[in-house]
Structures are given as C-alpha cells and as structure tokens.
C-alpha cells in the first residue's frame, strides 16, 4: 500500500503535464489533492504496518537479474517516520506556494516529481533502486530553484545540483565496488540491502569505502565542510523549494548515511566514529555561529539547518540506541520546524515585503502588521531552540544523552551550539518582528500588507501541531523507531556500541 505514495505522486505529475497551460487554479488543486492523497496513504500504510521492528516487504520483483537488482520496496519503522514526514511536508509546501503565478503547472509538476522520488528513496530496500530514486531528486530540485527562485537562483541551483551529483557519484563508486566485492565473496550478484547487510566486508575495504559512501550521502545532509550548498541553495530556492530542501531533501542524505553506509559497513563506522562526531559538532557550532551574524533573514534559517542537521549526524556517530533514535527523531523534528521557519521567512515575510534584510525589516514593525506571522515565528523559533513541549527538545535531548556516553567533550560543545541557537533565534525574532526602531519611511509603513491567507494559516497550524504532538507524545514515533534499532538489520552496527 505504501508504494502508492510514489505512484500517486507521479500520476499527479502526468495529470499536471496534460493540463492546458493557463489552468493555474486547476494545477494548484490537483497538486494539493495529490499531496493529500499521498499523505493519507502514508499515514494509513504506517498505521497498518503490523510490526515496525521488522522490514515488511511491499513489493519485490526481479528487475535486472544480471546485477541481482530487484524492484524491492519495503518499510520498517524508520522508513515510516520519514514517509509520514514527507507526506506532511508535501502538503505544507503546496499550501505555502499557493501564490505561484508563473508557470504554475510546471512548478507543481517538478514539485510532485521531487516528492515522488523522495518517497521512493525512503521505501527502497534495494541499493540500486534507492540510488535511482536518490538521483531522480536532483533534476526537479535544480529546475525548481533555477526557474522559480530568488537571490542568485541560477548559481544556487547549479551549486546544489553539482554538490548532489558529486555526492551521489561518490556513492556510486562505493556501490560498484561493494557489488563486486560482495559477489566475489558470496558467489552471486546481489544489490538487496538485507542480503548485503549480512556480508562481512574485509576491514581494509570498509576502511576506505565507508567514508566514501558516508560523505557521498553526507553532502546532502549538510555535513561540514561539504555544507556550503545548503545556505545558498536554501536562500535561492522558492519558499516551497527551501521547505522541501530543509524538510526532506537533507533527510535523504542522513537517511542514506544510516541506511546504506552505516548498515553495510559497521566496522567502517567504528573506525571513523570520532571523525564523524568531530565534523558533526563543528557543523553544529559553526552553523549556529554563522547564523548569529547574518543580515539576511533567510540565511539565518539556512545556517540554522546546517546546525540542526549536525545533531542528526552526531546522533548517528554515537552508535548507541538512544543516540540513533534521537537522530531519526531529529530528522522528523527538523523537517517540520525548518519547513515552518522557511514558510514564515519566504512566504509570509518576503513575498509581502520583498526584502529579507534585517535593517529594512526592523523598521517595518511586522509584529504589529502581520501578527499571525509573528506568532508563528515565535512558536517555530521556540521549537527550533529546543524548548520542552516541542519535538526539537526530545530529539536533541536524546542525541545529547547518547553522545554524552561516548564523547563527553563533544557533547559539551554541542550544548554551546544550542545556546548560540537560542541567541540567533531571538535576534532574528527581535529584528524581524518586534523591533521598535523608527526609521525613515522608506517602505511606506501605512501601506497595508496583504493579509495572511487561509492556505498559509492552515499550513502553519498543521506544522505547529505536528511539532507539538511529537513534543508531547514522542512515544508515537519512538514506538516505530526503537524496535527497528533492535532488529537484526542494526544488530552488527550496535553490538559494539557502549549500550
């Protein structure tokens, strides 16, 4: 059933392609209905899953027998969490791009193609199939940004596309080498993730192939120092684009790190564990520090994504159950919260004021003139800072608890990152919404801003509610994640950990 999340999205793409060019309204409605249908299927499929701890096959048919590749879709708890996240993010993104007037149907066609490919990555248990979906996301991303973006859009889009492509090619080298070595060892060709995870690759091989694949995927997860695509890409993207980039695309990278690199090469992870943790912490502190000094509102959020994704990578590096479950929870939480933050900056503020410069914004008294945007940003900021009650808190707390057992020093530094996070969020909040600076009336204060529309309200409320629900009842997702981590798939990865 979950496979229909993919098919529905691509059916939506086809329907949009057949629409006449002028039918902008119809395009929006089709896109929204497709996204809702996808999300409903995702929820229903996730709830129906009998046991999230085991990998439940959805469909498995031979695809390329010569390579041992199958069309193999399946799901375990971790996939479920991310599939549900994708469903929510897809709806929210469409609600916040309701005002796209330029080539509407093409925008939503690329958008739904991206969503369909993302679902595909999260549900693939054949390494080649996962790779196919992973690369399939690159093209829609490029066109969404290059065509509908803003600041330096062509540069940002090309940078993102090249970073993604280079990353996925590192993965491809690792994949081919893995296939050859596994075939030599087991005597038959296979690309099945479950089968490959049972192969014991030689230590010397794991030593070089693990970092290759991990960095390949990590580039998309915003792994420092390969994160530089993220701020420029996020800033250049249209609102829905940055919501998806931060909300689900960065998760693709982290998911690939966990699902492919770490599961296949458990000894390789242990050899590089400290280095990964170090890069993750640098990412957390660096991202937060740079966010603190930005003048562009959207760059603040862009760098904050790098910082928050650092927590995911730190959680992965802990190699214990609590750290890993924190990492997966953080993927979900950041997906929701970053989406919301970008929605406020891109749609609610920038589309109305046409500026994102704090020096301009602080003269506009947006807190008074756009109270809904202000309140939304307060809630999203609070959630982003990691205050109890929101999802960010449970996620980051678990990551830090897991990390404390393995790298106490790094954990302290990550804590500093959280404090800086509070600082940059408050600074952005104060400058953008609640500043009382009175300056020359350059932007026409009394010129009324277009009020916050209904789709925006619905989208914002949906995302805030999701973050609150998970913050208050983290068990909803942890009941999916934790049985997974105790399953045979992760056994080799976690057995040497400190728990």
């Amino acid at each position, binding site marked *: 059933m979950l496979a229909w999340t993919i098919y529905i999205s691509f059916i939506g793409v086809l329907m949009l392609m057949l629409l006449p060019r002028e039918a902008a309204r119809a395009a929006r409605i089709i896109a929204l209905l497709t996204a809702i249908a996808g999300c409903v299927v995702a929820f229903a499929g996730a709830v129906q899953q009998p046991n999230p701890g085991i990998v439940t096959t959805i469909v498995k048919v031979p695809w390329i027998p*010569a390579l041992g590749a199958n069309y193999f879709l399946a799901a375990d708890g971790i996939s479920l969490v991310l599939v549900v996240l994708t469903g929510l993010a897809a709806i929210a993104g469409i609600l916040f791009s309701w005002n796209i007037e330029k080539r509407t149907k093409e925008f939503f066609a690329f958008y739904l193609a991206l969503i369909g490919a993302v679902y595909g990555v999260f549900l693939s248990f054949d390494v080649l199939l996962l790779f196919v979906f992973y690369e399939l996301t690159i*093209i829609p991303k490029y066109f969404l940004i290059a065509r509908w973006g803003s600041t330096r859009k062509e540069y940002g889009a*090309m940078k993102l596309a090249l970073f993604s492509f280079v990353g996925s*090619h590192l993965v*491809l080298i690792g994949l081919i080498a893995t296939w050859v070595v596994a075939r030599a060892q087991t005597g038959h060709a296979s690309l099945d993730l479950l089968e490959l995870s049972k192969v014991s690759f030689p230590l010397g091989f794991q030593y070089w192939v693990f970092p290759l694949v991990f960095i390949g995927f990590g580039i998309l997860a915003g792994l420092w120092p390969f994160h530089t695509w993220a701020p420029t890409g996020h800033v250049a993207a249209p609102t829905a684009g940055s919501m998806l980039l931060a909300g689900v695309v960065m998760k693709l990278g982290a998911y690939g790190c966990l699902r492919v690199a770490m599961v296949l090469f458990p000894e390789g992870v242990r050899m590089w564990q400290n280095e990964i943790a170090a890069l993750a912490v640098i990412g957390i502190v660096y991202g937060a520090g740079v966010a603190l000094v930005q003048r562009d509102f959207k760059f603040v959020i862009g760098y904050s994504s790098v910082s928050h994704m650092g927590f995911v990578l730190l959680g992965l590096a802990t190699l214990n159950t609590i750290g890993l479950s924190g990492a997966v929870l953080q993927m979900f939480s950041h997906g929701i919260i970053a989406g919301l933050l970008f929605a406020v900056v891109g749609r609610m503020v920038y589309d109305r004021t046409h500026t994102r410069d704090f020096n301009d914004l602080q003269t506009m008294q947006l807190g008074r003139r756009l109270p809904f945007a202000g309140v939304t940003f307060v809630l999203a900021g609070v959630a982003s800072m990691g205050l109890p009650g929101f999802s960010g808190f449970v996620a980051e707390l678990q990551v830090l608890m897991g990390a404390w057992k393995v790298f106490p020093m790094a954990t302290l530094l990550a804590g500093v990152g959280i404090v800086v996070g509070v600082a940059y969020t408050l600074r952005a909040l104060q400058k953008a919404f609640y500043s009382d600076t009175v300056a020359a009336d350059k932007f026409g204060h009394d010129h009324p801003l277009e009020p916050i529309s209904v789709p925006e309200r619905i989208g914002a409320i949906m995302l805030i509610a999701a973050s609150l629900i998970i913050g208050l009842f983290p068990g909803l997702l942890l009941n999916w994640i934790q049985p997974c981590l105790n399953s045979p798939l992760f056994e080799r990865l976690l057995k040497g950990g400190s728990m």
Partner: protein
Amino acid sequence: MNYLEILRVAAPETALAVTVLMVLAVDLIVLREESVARRFGTGALVSILGCLMAAVFTFTRYGDANLLNGMLVVDPQTDFLKVVLLALAVFTVLISTSGKFTEHVGEYLALVLLATIGLMFLISAEDILMIFISLELASLSLYILTAFNKRNARSSEAALKYFLFGGMSAAFLLFGFSLLYGLSGSTNLPQIAASLAGRGLDPLLLVAIVTTVIGFGFKVAAVPFHLWAPDAYEGAPTPSAAFIASGSKVASFYILAKILTLGFAGAEGSAVWQGYVSGWTPVIAVVAALSMVLGNLTAIVQSSVKRLLAYSAIAHAGYMLLGVLANTPSSHSALLFYVITYALTVLGAFGVVTVVEAATGGDAMANFAGLSRRAPGLSLCLLVFLLSLAGIPPLAGFIGKFFLFSAVVGTDAEHLGLLWLVILAIVMSAVSFYYYLQVLKQAYVLDAAANAPAIKVPPATMFALILLAALVILLGCAPGLLLRFL
C-alpha cells in the same frame, strides 16, 4: 560453397544494395520535377522499406555461417547488431526528411544506405582484409555525407578535415594489418592469434598493436586522435553527424573489440594499478583515460551544442574503451549495451538539434533558450536524451554506465585493480553533468526572446524522436529487454 550460398548469408546487405539502386532510380526517373520535401518523403519511404526488408532477411536466416575463412561470419549477435544498425539508419533517414541542406535527395539517401552496408559487412568480418574494405566503404560514404551541404563552406572544410584524418588513419591501420599478416601469414583473426601465441611481445607486434589502436582511435574519436570530430560534427549536415556519431560508433567499437580480443589474444598485458604488464590493454587504458578527461573538460567551454555533443562523444568513447580493455564476457555485453543505448540517445539529441537549427538558424546555446515554451514535446525529448547522456537514472545511459563500470571493476574482484580507471570515469561523468545541464538550463530556465513563435516540428522527425526517447526510458527501466540479445 557457391555464390548462392554467399547471397543467402549476405541477403540483408544485398537487399540494402538493391534499395540503394532503387532510391537513386526513383529519384532520378520519377521525381525529378517535384519539390525537395516531396522527394525526401518518397525517397525516405523507399529507404525505410528497404531497411525493413533487410531486417526481415536478417531475422529469417537459418543457421550460423562462416564463409571464405572468416570473410563473412554470421551468428545471432551479428544479426542483432545489424538490426540495430538498420534501425539507426531508419532513424537517421527520418530526421533527415525535413532537411533543407541539399537538392540531391537520392544521392544523400543512397549514401546513408551505402554507409550502412559497409558497417553491416564490418560487423560480420573476421578477416583483416574484409575489415579494411568494409571500413573504407562506410568511411567514404560518411566523408561525402559530411560534405553534403554544398552551400556551407564549413561543411566542405569539415569533410576535408574528416577525409584527411580518415585517410591517415586508414594508412596506419593498413600498415598495422600488413605487419600482422607478415608476422602470422594469415588474414584471419583467430588464425593470427593462434600463430602469434607463445611468441611473446616482439617489437613488430607492438608496432602492429599501436598502429591498429591509432587507426581505430580515429574512427571512434578517442584522444589524441579526436581532432576531426568537433569540426566534422559542427560542419556536417546535422543528420549526417548523427549517423557518424551513432551507427559508425556501434560498428567501430564492435570490430575494435573483436580485433583486440580475437586477433591479439595472448598479448593483452594488464592495466591493473601497480600491476602493469605491457600489451594492448595498457595502451587502451591510456587512450581511454585521456579521452574521458579531455573530452569532458573541453566540452564545458563549448557554446555550440553540436561541438558540445562532439566532445561528449569523445568522453563517451573513453568510457566505452574501458569496456574493451576489461575483456570479459560480461564486459563485452556491457560494452555493446552501452554503445547501442548511446547511439540511440545521441541520434535523438542530434535530431532535436536538427529541428532547432532549422527553426532558429543555428545551434548555439542561445538558440535553445525558452525551448520548453516554444516546443514542449521537443524539449522534453531533449531532456531525456541529455540526462541519459549524463547518466541520470532511470534512463538507459545510467544503467549502461552501471553495467559497464561494474563489469570493469569485476574483472579483478580480488584487488579491484581496474578501480582507478572507473573512479576516473565516474569523477569525469560528474563533470559532464555540468555541461549537459547548461543546455537544459537554456531550454527550461531561460526565456526565449519576446514574441519568438512556437517551433513546428516535422511529424516524421517528431515520431522518430518520441520513439527514441521512449526507447531510452524503456531500456533504462527494463534493460533486460536488450541485454538478452548481447
């Protein structure tokens, strides 16, 4: 053995030769007073029927044969490749039909078919004399096809360049072949290998290897023998360039692999990292590495799309050479898969360029601006072709690369000795993404000049392009369909 037997085995080629005469006759006798478009239409119809006829003969042949000691060898694999060549010829004819580059319609179509006959004989040859003769038949036809746009000086220049380089390469090839004959006393490839076996690498054999590689290096446009390609692709009428890049490449790679693996069996050497042994594989490895690097890096700075495709063809020749040097059954079929899907893709890409060139008067990047608005179907086809060339899944180009690279790495699973070449290839193919995306950026991101009219795509061309794009997608999603013939 009698002449009837030869006629039976060479029925497809014979049918095609008869078609050549018919095309010429019809054009000369019946259509003299008609318009060019009309003549192209009728001529194309006759040619396509001839190709279909030849394909039917290929399929209905019974029993494998090896005539005149390797002069004409047919087995299921050569049959399939001949059908592929015929299909490529049909697609070339289809994208030519709207051409305005010549009034000599009959001659043009006849030369396309003659080149196809040469390539078909080439596929079937296991004898160095026959290889040389059929290669010359194909090459001479292609030189003239390059020069066909008489009103354009660049076309003549390109043809002259192609001809001179090609003549040189033929001389090298013949020199190498004469050494081979002198060393072994035979012109048959397996017999050459048998008599060379156990003699080690004597200097004459090394010279023969190097000159053969040079000769075919020109044919497949591998660095450093590539200089003719960009000019020929740019100057030639676009459908001619499409056939040079597709049909000629398929046959050349097939026969190069055959000569090296059959004729030089026992002189392979090794290109394994830190395990180098002299022989023909290290020579090919060097040529392949140079082609991948130079082709991809030079393509980045091109502003003409045809030149860009030429440099990308050089880079792709580098990838394909990896399949030649790996020299295992799986790498051989991976090579054929790659070269066939590449041929289909590049033919499609040139087809799109043909239309754009006809509508906008040039093939510069800027001529593609706003194509997605001016011709949505056409630019969707372009998207498919270029992404397949870049190796984006699930298109045929990606699966081809995966087959090829995994087969190459798999030849030495113990030490992954050829991984260095594959890493180079993959890194370079990451570079290639940039320039393909530049063209797509023009089509999908930038806007055409205000009030640029919609582009009308001729129905025959559109039909061919849609078919090619569908094939590229289909073979990417279900590669087994093609793989089982190889």
